[in-house]
């Protein structure tokens, strides 16, 4: 008797996983994100800027994954522990309260894509010694029950810190140290 509505519900579930409406639309939040992720560097050639960037990624322990220097693209990743003290404590409390084993973060893959593109001057020409660097970090966290959680990192401090390191590296590269 009661099973019919449940089955109908299940039928609907099976059919629909919705693609978010504005997946391919640039929203104001995304423009804000762009500002956070982009810095301009002057006085350095594209090839040197990419080399400086690759060096910073290595400083940060990333393994280079892919590159197409002719398009200014660099991608890298690293696997790290994702155990978080607060989360462990919460899991213990849940277990003590009889909630059973709660899945907590186990490890994570951190991915980064870095793209260098020339600044376009007022005549529409690409400048040879001024470039924008845009970097994006993503994270794929595996939980103890083997499920995964994915996200793009948005903390402004993270990006600020990264660009500070890149500035240092650009300086070193320019001085050929």
């Amino acid at each position, binding site marked *: 008797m009661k099973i019919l509505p449940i089955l109908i519900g299940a039928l609907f579930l099976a059919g629909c996983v919705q693609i978010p409406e504005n997946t391919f639309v640039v929203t104001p939040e995304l423009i804000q994100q762009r500002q956070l992720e982009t810095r301009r560097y002057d006085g350095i050639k594209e090839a040197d800027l990419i080399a400086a960037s690759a060096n910073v990624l290595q400083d940060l322990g990333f393994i280079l994954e892919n590159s197409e220097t002719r398009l200014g693209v660099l*991608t890298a990743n690293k696997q790290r522990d994702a155990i978080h003290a607060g989360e462990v404590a919460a899991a213990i409390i849940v277990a003590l309260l009889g909630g059973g084993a709660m899945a907590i973060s186990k490890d994570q893959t951190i991915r980064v894509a870095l793209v260098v593109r020339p600044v376009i001057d007022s005549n529409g020409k690409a400048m040879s010694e001024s470039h924008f660097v845009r970097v994006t970090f993503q994270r794929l966290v595996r939980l103890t029950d083997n499920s995964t959680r994915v*996200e793009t990192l948005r903390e402004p401090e993270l990006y600020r810190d990264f660009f500070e390191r890149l500035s240092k590296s650009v300086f070193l590269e320019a001085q050929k140290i």
Partner: protein
Amino acid sequence: MKYLVTAIILLLSLLSGCATTNQRVLDSGDETQLQKRSYQSRIFDTADKEKVLRATISTLQDLGFVIDRADLMLGSVSGTKLEGHQIKITVSVRPKGTDRMLVRANAQFNNTPIEDPKHYQNFFVSLEKSLFLTAHAGE
């Protein structure tokens, strides 16, 4: 008894939704190859492949994608967007004649192909803005 029959029919209808491996590999749905190509492609009036590729990369980044790989020779760019769900896209840029570029995109949402032309339309609108060029339907 009546409900049991209804339940069985409903369950069978769920099963019928499952495609065979071959259908999955070839993604052979109701659309023809040509229909798919037409909403996934646009033509731009420029002969500069590198410019189109760099604009594609910027557009994908603006849309929140992380670039996975790019290849100037092949003219391809792939990216991934992670927002609790996963969207993957590949964009290819090929010369069409001597003075135009054909841009083609295909994307997947988690484990299903994106087949709604509206999403591709949105993507090409963003790309147009970044290229300062108007996209033409082609093929």
